């Protein structure tokens, strides 16, 4: 497996879409290739950062809803009924 093939297979590996033979080959490559291990780890960090930085905080409402939007929504409802 080349580094290019390894990188191509990362999503399938993480989503457990690889067959047993491909998975074994993938894991063997990462054991022997430090740049590919670093690529895999930073790929996973990228996903984690994307999720954490975009996710809405749990619990309290994060932003006050602009009054202009509230009134637009209420008007749309009145127009509908």
């Amino acid at each position: 497996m080349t580094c290019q093939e390894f990188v191509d297979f990362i999503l399938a590996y993480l989503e457990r879409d690889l067959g047993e033979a491909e998975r074994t080959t993938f894991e063997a490559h990462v054991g022997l290739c430090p740049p590919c291990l670093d690529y895999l780890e930073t790929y996973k960090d990228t996903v984690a950062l994307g999720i954490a930085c975009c996710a809405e905080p749990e619990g309290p409402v994060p932003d006050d809803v602009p009054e202009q939007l509230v009134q637009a929504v209420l008007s749309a409802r009145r127009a509908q009924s």
Partner: protein
Amino acid sequence: MKADGLRAASRAAGAPMADEGALVARLRAGEDAAFETLVRTQGGRMLAVARRYLPEEDAHDAVQDAFVSVTRAIGRFEGNSRLSTWLHRIVVNAALMKLRARKRRPEESIEELLPRFLEDGHQADAATPWRESVQDSLERQETRSLVRANIDKLPESYRTVLLLRDVDELDTQETAEALGISTTNVKVRLHRARQALRTLLDPHFRKDAS
């Protein structure tokens, strides 16, 4: 109840909606006050979701469309999920409808953000570790805006798939149906979007970053 009181009550409860069942019953009965309560307590959260997909003005329109959908569909809300989860899905759908309706602009290529390889298959720019853990990065205040700004740099068709799959937690099939594309195409776009975002973040997080 005044808006401030509603917001305070919502925050004090530490949850989007206290006594959700009663609110749903009032919404089904068509109570205007219940609808206003819903808009004031959930509109901000829904706007935050819409803003991930759309510029500000379109995000407002998507939230408005979502609430119109709510009034039509509240009778079908079965209470199997939290009301906030149901609202989340509705506003994501409204945002996707807006995206589809927008005039399609030629999209920038993602190719230059993908990793490059030598003829023998080795990485052309060998990856190196990042200097701190995700958890440590998240403790720095600027990380959130940095990551979001770089997600916004992704071409729209890739950014949308990344948001649907990674942030809004749709599975591959749901994402394919929402966008009218194949599951294979979802996987290709998701992988490229993640690789491109990694390329954009790498200069900020690698050990030798300034």
